[in-house]
């Protein structure tokens, strides 16, 4: 609605190098698309979590998880297909920059999913991945980028940084700059429960896939964000596992096949 502040150049900030067509066609595809791209997700976020959050913007047609080319496991991004353009717009407007599974996710229009795009494009087969680090205790949100640089992702990274800036800088109002995401205190009861959610119980679950190298940055960020930093020293340094993540079982190959077959 507020055309006064809309940046008309925003749509075309990056261009997917797999798109076959002109820049205009690419922009047109973005303008009509009912698909959104979601980035900076946790590797353990499930489709059902995505469904719960994104269905609040409208009826979802499909979810396509981005998968690591080699391990065929989620690698931090996905596509959500809506039935209506309006709902896709609302997802971009209202969900981008908010938290899912403890991570600020980014939501953008996508020109539409085609087969093959679910595979990560990082050098190691994983997503060219971005690791964000929220350090609450210093009152400053720092961004640590830790990515495998590859091809078209250079611009993507830049966009990511811009998005992040937008997240932090709210400062035009009379009430000064925004502090970073921090636990709110709910009157007398708030604040005291700082251990609200940074370490997890029930980490007894299976650890089949070893992806420590991909994840150490994120792990340490989670630790730092804990109020009780002593926890950082005694915590299990191996990756935590979202127990809701349903392990691929013996029919794994077939399931991957399913994904490939989807129209």
């Amino acid at each position, binding site marked *: 609605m507020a055309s*006064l*502040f809309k940046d008309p150049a925003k749509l075309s900030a990056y261009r997917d190098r797999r798109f076959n067509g002109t820049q205009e066609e690419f922009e047109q595809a973005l303008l009509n698309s009912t698909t959104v791209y979601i980035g900076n997700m946790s590797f353990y976020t499930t489709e059902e979590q995505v469904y719960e959050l994104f269905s609040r913007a409208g009826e979802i047609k499909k979810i396509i998880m981005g998968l690591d080319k080699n391990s065929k496991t989620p690698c931090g991004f996905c596509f959500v297909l809506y039935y209506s353009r309006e709902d896709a717009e609302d997802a971009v407007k*209202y969900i981008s920059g908010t938290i899912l599974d403890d991570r600020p996710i980014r939501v953008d229009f996508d020109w539409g999913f085609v087969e093959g795009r679910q595979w990560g494009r990082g050098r190691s087969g994983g997503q060219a991945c971005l690791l964000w680090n929220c350090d609450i205790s210093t009152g400053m949100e720092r961004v640590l980028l830790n990515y495998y640089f590859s091809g078209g992702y250079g611009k993507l990274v830049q966009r990511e940084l811009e998005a992040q800036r937008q997240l932090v800088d*709210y400062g035009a109002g009379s009430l000064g700059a925004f502090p970073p*995401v921090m636990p*709110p205190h709910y*009157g007398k009861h708030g604040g005291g429960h700082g251990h609200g959610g940074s370490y997890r119980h*029930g980490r007894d679950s299976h650890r089949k896939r070893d992806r420590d190298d991909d994840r150490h940055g994120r792990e340490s960020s989670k630790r730092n964000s804990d109020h009780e930093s002593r926890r950082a020293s005694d915590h299990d340094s191996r990756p935590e596992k979202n127990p809701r993540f349903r392990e691929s079982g013996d029919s794994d190959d077939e*399931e991957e096949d399913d994904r490939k077959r989807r129209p």
Partner: protein
Amino acid sequence: MSSWKSLLLRIGDKSSEYNSSSDFKDHIETCFGALRRELLHSSSEILPFLLQCSEQLPHKIPLYGTLIGLLNLEDEDFVKKIVENTQDSFQDALDSGKCDIIRILMRFLTVLMCSKVIQPASLVVVFETLLSSAAITVDEEKGNPSWQARADFYVICILSCLPWGGAELAEQVPEEIERVLVGIQAYLSIRRHTSNSGLSFFEDGESGGDIEKDFLEDLWERIQVLSNNGWKVESVPRPHLSFEAQLVGGKSHEFGPISCPEQPELPSTISAVAYGKQKHEAELKYPQRTRRLNIFPASKTEDLQPIDRFVVEEYLLDVLLFFNGCRKECASFMVGLPVPFRYEYLMAETIFSQLLLLPHPPFKPIYYTLVIMDLCKALPGAFPAVVAGAVRALFDKIADLDMECRTRLILWFSHHLSNFQFIWPWDEWAYVLDLPRWAPQRVFVQEVLEREVRLSYWDKIKQSIENAPALEELLPPKGGPNFKYSGVDGQGKTEQEQALSAELSNKVKGRQSAREIIVWIEESIYPIHGLEVTLSVVVQTLLDIGSKSFTHLITILERYGQVMAKLCSDQDKQVMLIAEVGSYWKNNAQMTAITIDRMMSCRLVSNLAIVRWVFSPENIEQFHLSDCPWEVLRNAVSKTYNRITDLRKEISSLKKGVISAEEAASKAKADLEAAESKLSLVEGEPVLGENPAKLKHLKSVAEKAKEEEESMHDSLEAKEALLARALDENEVLFLSLYKNFCTVLMEHLPDASSDVTLQSLKSIHGDSMAVDLEESSTMEVDDENGIPKKSQSNGGKASNTCNVKEKEQWCLSTLGYVKAFSRQYASEIWPHIEKLDAEVFTEDVHPLLRKAVYSGLRQMSNEL
């Protein structure tokens, strides 16, 4: 952006454009200086931008108005154009019923009057035109009182101008403005009081004699106080006063008369239904902008003058309206309003009133979720505590809160907490465990936890309630599937069934086609084992194969949906199919809902089958305990509605296509005819018709265009037929829904003759429970700091929330959902009301059900 643009945009803000000065007079002088320089060569750019700014930043209108007043001294023609432009947009907005534009332009005109750009008398003419249209509308003989919503809107617009220019009007045209106010008073005496019973947030005190003031009555009272205070308003800046000496020198421009649209025609037959339909239509077009929530103690919000509250609400609502989608600007304008007092509580209450607004908020609830999050980050010291206060206040009154609002509150709260590490002082609410299972507060906590788990995962949420570990009891089950043939525990299933399931599973793994599996079932399973076993084995096994994720589910339904479709060919079997889904996912409400929803998407089950399943005995038992059956029902009705909406959209775009195809065809035909009738020379001889090659080409173009037109017509007809069928199906759906509601409520409600009301249902107490409650609340009064908790301080509330007996709570919840469904789909239900009245809401339907439906539809209460 050129500097005059950013100066215009940022005027009034503390920003670098104005060297962080916050003096409005400086701002206006600086901006005026810049504009004056540009006026000569950029006036055609300045004009639309200035108008756009005043429309989209209405809280800055006084600044823009003064600026225009100063420009008027420089360039009368420029300002004349502004006035003319405004007049055109205003007339256009009146004709097309654009409420926000009407309202904002009237404020703009008022401010122009303050800056001497237009005469006070012309503004009074505008007021009188609107007022007289309003008065005719509510006149029973000359007008059409069912359109009171529009009349009220006009009068609200007049009153809304007065904080911006009441003082000037009273000073310059005292008699005229007095006449307007007397006219409004007269209008108020003829119009009907708007009963809010269908749209109010809380269902309480309806039997009480004290009728709450409606929005217009309330505003009228605030304006009267304002008038008695000599029109002093703290919340409206009056920058024109600093420039008064200059402004008086300006030439006032003509603001010509405006006209209100014709009075809407009366229905051909006068009946309560026809009246109700028109009223519904009018209220859709002229909706009430806000409804006050009043959740905070008066001390938090009422230290302001009554009018300031109204003005600040206007500011906030306008920012929410125009800055939807611009997070940064939205948050910074929300916190930086030009008022000399704090307003966090008012801001929270306004946002919550929008989030919960009935029947629909202007935007999706998730927008307000985002705004609240951003404000918590913008004002970390103040706003989170206010939000928490709102949550506590709503939680205290949850038993009276409308069902739809409860659902929205649950979705908002879980989402909000998920963005703030799930931190909440749950120990404050641990006492809900002492309440019966059906106590609304307990159900609320349970549903919030359910949604939190969906957004996160079980262990994480378990850990987030560490400060009240007992609440683990209210967490949903850990969510895995409940596969009958998992082989872990026998579950009383025969080995034979187990083997069948394994065989089917192998066939799927072996990539047998749906066709092959259907043949296998029809030849060797169904005839031997019968329907029940076959259905159970097939459905459970396929669901299990598709259980890993949403995508797996979709894939299995795409590939083997036909197998289920073949097996469940009629509604009875579809109900069995859904029941099987319910049993497989009994520990996971989300997967139950998603699976049923997907099955409806691929037309494996009909909405009617879903309704029947929702009203099956095991679900009926859950009506007051869990959102699960309601979620499934909501999905089914909303999917039906979405399909209809899509068809309507397609039809409207096809209609446009048909028109342009018709035009193209007739143009092609005309071209061809013109060419045919033209004489041309072929081999020296004059021949009728242009050269053959061109003619041939034109002919084929004309034929193609004709074909195109016909095919457009055909697809339009096809879609219209589809829509007609969908509407019929919709009627059947609502008939079935209401019949089911009717039946179950009849079984549970006390005898209709005993004159029951919702209030009396609530006051049927279980004595033992009242005692329990008292104990639990005394226990809760002291927390570890020994400070009595706010939520308990008004103990009366807590006690009336949970000593309702189970059966009564069941009735209250179910009636609440009846009202919520009726209200949400009112526009779809009204066209079928005659049929519903004839077949469902007959004489012997329970009065409480009828009341719930009609108040949801906003049928006038006195017609009941």
